[in-house]
């Protein structure tokens, strides 16, 4: 498979701080690639390196096998949707979209035709004469996309463009963005701190922390088999239990919890007996009730409160100093729970991941 974007060992230092630290990535043509990380993890810096607004201290950037390191931003086959969209307030929608074509010296008639077509494609036919200030948030978003897509870039970079939208519109745009990407077939590199955006839209997601990639994988792999404790806790909700390794056998680790009791999980790396370790288990994998299969790990917890939220209803329980969450099924399988009572929770060991604590 051919790569649209290929980077090796990118480093960008600001003084002593390495904002981007030995990052390598490979994005296949036509795919939707997300970089997910908390603010300050270096994802914006990485994106600016790709767009050409910043130069790497070392490492190489290749786009369609062309080395890009010294190519100025206006000469790269890369376009970008900015965080605050950066629509030119002094120009109409059509002039915004025609801006890049004009720079390529496309004739006026051709420009108008292309502008009209792309406006139709993003679902805004006939709005070319409006000023950006007259559009709604979602419409502006589409204009920003159209402005880039009309240039048919090899690579489209998106810098958290949904951040400014309200929740409902954001949900809607997530789906739409994915459809548009499929329709245009352009390679998208999308950065976000919102794990739901990354999981819903992407073919592959890179989780970034302190300038490095913790894990690069498909969304479902990322969710089910996190490679590091950071990924486990950053992507989706997770419960964490600390303890000491009692034994490792048959792809299972047995842990003695600090709060007492013995539980099992899947080791993410080699673990030695006696080592400190943390077990991560998702709320929906934690089942409530005493009558669970014998192979399950169990813990006894104190119920703090129940949080009703339709299909996402959960209970909050306490084990020692830790707060744990478990899914509360709404199918009547769990009876009425009173705060303060003891609740027994259990999980299939295959669903839990255990990391050596040193990694945390």
């Amino acid at each position, binding site marked *: 498979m051919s790569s649209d974007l290929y980077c090796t060992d990118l480093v960008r230092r600001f003084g002593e701080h390495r904002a981007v630290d030995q990052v390598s990535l490979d994005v296949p043509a036509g795919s939707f690639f997300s970089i997910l990380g908390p603010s300050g993890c270096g994802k914006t810096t990485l994106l600016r390196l790709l*767009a050409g607004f910043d130069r790497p201290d070392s490492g190489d950037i290749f786009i369609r096998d062309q080395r890009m390191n010294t190519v100025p*931003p206006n000469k790269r086959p890369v376009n970008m949707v900015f*965080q605050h969209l*950066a*629509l030119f307030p002094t120009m109409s929608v059509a002039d915004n979209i025609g801006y890049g074509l004009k*720079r390529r010296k496309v004739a006026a008639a051709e420009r108008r035709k292309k502008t009209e077509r792309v406006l139709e494609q993003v679902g805004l036919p006939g709005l070319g004469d409006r000023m950006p200030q007259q559009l709604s948030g979602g419409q502006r978003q589409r204009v920003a996309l159209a402005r*880039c897509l009309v240039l048919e870039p090899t690579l489209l970079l998106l810098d958290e463009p949904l951040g400014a939208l309200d929740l409902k519109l954001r949900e809607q745009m997530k789906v739409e963005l994915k459809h548009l990407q499929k329709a245009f077939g352009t390679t998208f590199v999308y950065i976000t701190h919102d794990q739901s955006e990354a999981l819903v839209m992407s073919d592959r997601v890179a989780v970034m922390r302190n300038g490095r990639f913790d894990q690069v994988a498909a969304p479902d792999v990322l969710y089910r088999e996190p490679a590091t404790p950071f990924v486990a806790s950053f992507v989706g909700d997770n419960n964490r239990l600390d303890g000491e390794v009692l034994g490792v056998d048959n792809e299972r680790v047995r842990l003695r919890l600090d709060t007492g009791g013995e539980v099992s999980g899947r080791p993410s790396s080699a673990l030695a007996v006696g080592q400190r370790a943390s077990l991560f288990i998702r709320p929906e994998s934690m089942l409530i009730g005493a009558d669970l299969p014998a192979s399950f790990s169990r813990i006894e917890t104190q119920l703090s409160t129940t949080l009703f939220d339709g299909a996402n209803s959960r209970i909050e329980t306490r084990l020692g100093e830790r707060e744990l969450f478990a899914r509360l099924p709404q199918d009547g399988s769990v009876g009425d729970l009173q705060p303060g009572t003891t609740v027994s929770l259990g999980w299939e060991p295959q669903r839990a991941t255990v990391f050596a604590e040193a990694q945390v």
Partner: protein
Amino acid sequence: MIRSVPRSRWFISLYGLYLLAFFIYLALPLVVTAVFAFNDSNFPSLPWQGFTLDWYFADAAESGNRTGLFHDQGLLSALWVSVLVAFWVTVISVALGCVNAVLFERIQFRGKELLYLVMLLPLVIPGVILGVSILVFYSGMANQVSLNWGIELDLFRPGLPLVIAGQVAFITTLSTLIIAARLRKFDPQLEEAALNLGATPIVAWFTVTLPWLLPAIFGAAAMAFLMSFENFNTTVMLTGSDTPLTVALFNRLREGSTPVLNAVALLLMAVSALLAMATLRRS
């Protein structure tokens, strides 16, 4: 106090009365000046002698002792001098203002804070002092040069170049503030977006940044023109034989007032009002 807080009746009426008095206070001198520009009397005061346009159009050569503004060579040439000075002050101070705005809003360098304060200095220096210091420096230099080498630096003698220099000294600060305020609201990402869409840095500046700054540049230009036109304190210290209008009017006024002065004043008000109105409409 505010609308949602109840106020007593007498408080409201007292407040209203005060507002009325205030706006009468503001308007009265100007209205009176304007009205007396049309009084058919040789002295701008009561009683009202009837309406006349003599103070604009009368020609002493044709009709006795009155000389209207449009036949008063002294005032007309002073008006022309003022326009000339204001034009150059506008061009120079707006150009400097643009460069300064970019310097302070877009470039990071050591000692920027200090330089910014230095940039503000002309605002806290009284206009008379500004004029005097420029007079002492340049005219003094011309004297020295003349004394020591016999070269006459007429450029540095009191005259229009010094007047322009003196006005540029403080008007530049104002135009810098106006343009910088607009540039501060400019999102630098817009320039990056332009580069990203294939523009070179220079094209990006002219297609994206400059159109954004244009209203502020027009505003600064109108402000600079008016400030220059109306300036007296700095100008009076630096004029030579060609006197700008304000200085000429001042000299006339000391000799005694005639309704021609009212006519000039009304003309000035009308022109400034038009200029101000045009600027306000644009923004």
